[in-house]
């Protein structure tokens, strides 16, 4: 093999793919590095490393309050969407086919409908009942966005179950409820957990709906970041971003491993 062939066959593709991968990862790395900068403005590479922006975040009630609100809202969304979504996935699997299409169409549609349409639709309805600016509104709206992930995840693990296991349990004298708790639930547990993790992240990261529903009374962390970005882009946001990257990547990594182990 001559040199030209070697370059065309191996070196060039490797370089191209390497550059694209760099394009993917580089912005994330830059935000993480900038968050440890000692400079008061955004500059790269940082003149020196310092934890001042993390101290600024953890010492400021204006950042911590939205953080806790986001965590509580996401926790409520996890409970509500996992409960409703798991039950619905169990039910939908046994509905007549025509009804199954309609039901899953409704449940999965938030994946297709542009989020701005969902956001202003819910805002339009909720503002009439004085719900705007309350955490309850955020929980209800985020649950609608999170439910598709729970249902798809649970449905996927349900379809992987050998139906003979449930039949065996029933024929050996277990009640349907006993069969659910002792056979079905342990088998779909990874799917339920993955759905719950997705639900948490969906709510925790959500911004578009929160822009309309947060009002001034229920400011979430993404909403607080958005408001801050309009005035200044000091590195506090880089520190907050780094913390949320670490949190979401850890949770999504868990979901990824769970899903891999389940299949």
């Amino acid at each position: 093999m001559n040199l030209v062939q070697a370059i065309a066959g191996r070196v060039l593709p490797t370089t191209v793919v390497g550059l694209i991968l760099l394009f993917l990862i580089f912005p994330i790395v830059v935000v993480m590095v900038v968050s440890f900068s000692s400079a008061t403005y955004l500059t790269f590479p940082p003149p020196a490393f310092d934890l001042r922006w993390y101290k600024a975040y953890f010492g400021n009630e204006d950042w911590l309050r939205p953080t806790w609100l986001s965590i509580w809202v996401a926790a409520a969304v996890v409970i509500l969407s996992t409960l409703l979504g798991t039950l619905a996935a169990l039910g939908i699997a046994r509905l007549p086919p025509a009804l199954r299409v309609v039901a899953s169409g409704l449940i999965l549609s938030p994946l297709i409908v542009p989020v701005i349409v969902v956001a202003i639709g819910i805002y339009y309805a909720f503002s009439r009942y004085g719900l705007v600016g309350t955490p309850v509104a955020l929980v209800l709206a985020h649950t609608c966005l999170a439910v598709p992930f729970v249902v798809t995840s649970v449905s996927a693990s349900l379809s992987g179950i050998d139906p003979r296991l449930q039949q065996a349990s029933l024929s050996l004298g277990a009640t349907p409820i006993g069969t659910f708790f002792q056979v079905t639930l342990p088998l779909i547990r990874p799917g339920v957990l993955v759905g719950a993790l997705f639900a948490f992240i969906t709510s925790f990261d959500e911004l578009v709906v929160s822009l309309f529903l947060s009002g001034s009374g229920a400011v979430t962390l993404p909403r607080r970041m958005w408001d801050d970005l309009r005035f200044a882009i000091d590195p506090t946001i880089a520190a907050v971003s780094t913390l949320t990257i670490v949190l979401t990547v850890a949770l999504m990594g868990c979901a990824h491993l769970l899903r891999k182990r389940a299949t």
Partner: protein
Amino acid sequence: MAVSRPFAASFAWQRTVPYLLAAPLLIFMLVFYALPVLSMLMRSFFNPGLTLSNYTSLPDDVVFIKVFWNTLYTSIIVTLGTLLLGYPVALALVRTRRLAPLILIVIMLPFWTSVLVRSYAWMVLMGRHGLINEAMMAAGFLDRPMRLLNTPLATQIAMVHILLPYMILPIANALRQIDPSLARAASGLGATPLGTFRQVILPLSMPGVAAGTLLVFVLALGFYITPAMVGGPREITLSMLIAQQVDQLNWSYAACLSAVLLATALVIIGAAQRLPGIGNAFKMSAR
């Protein structure tokens, strides 16, 4: 033959169980999602009396036409960009054995990061004194910082970055399903590596390309956060125009624009349903 009573009762009970399980979520979604969105969309037919004037005036609405084309144009550019950058990565992901986990991590790390944070990252990179300008000036390509942030190009680059995994993953999926013996057979029969790729691999990966293209295009249509943060002040998207109209309490116009945006997405998805491999495209939008 008569069925004994308790058995019939339990049979009927068994048949209602699925409905009882699905009902809470379906009612929840109807009350807090479907009915609110539908009642908002209905506003587009009132101005203030029942009328179609919101829709009939759209073709002459200069702002709408400009924003609509800008939204379509951005989505097309971004889709082509992700296709161009995504295919080689998908191929590398499937071909390499040792580096595949590393490549997957590099794809998934940004994928799992929120759109807000990724858009912010591009603000940091593309600012007047951001990394790109500083590096280009240090290397002598530029004398003074060029305007990158708040341009259409900034939106396109950031959106390609955000949507790239949605293109890579379906293509990699399709590539993985190709029987490796086909490529061996082609080269055994005398095809060059490039010929094997063009005549065997590429056609067989088309369902993945179709799924990725549909996913990226439809998601790009609805983008709001990224163009609002890094895009130009004049080149707004349909989502941004909708938000603006809601802020001005122009509900019937905002509802009409929402209906147009939703219909555009649905028409494209509907048209794509004829293509192979599309069926589950949107289930893959799970991060």
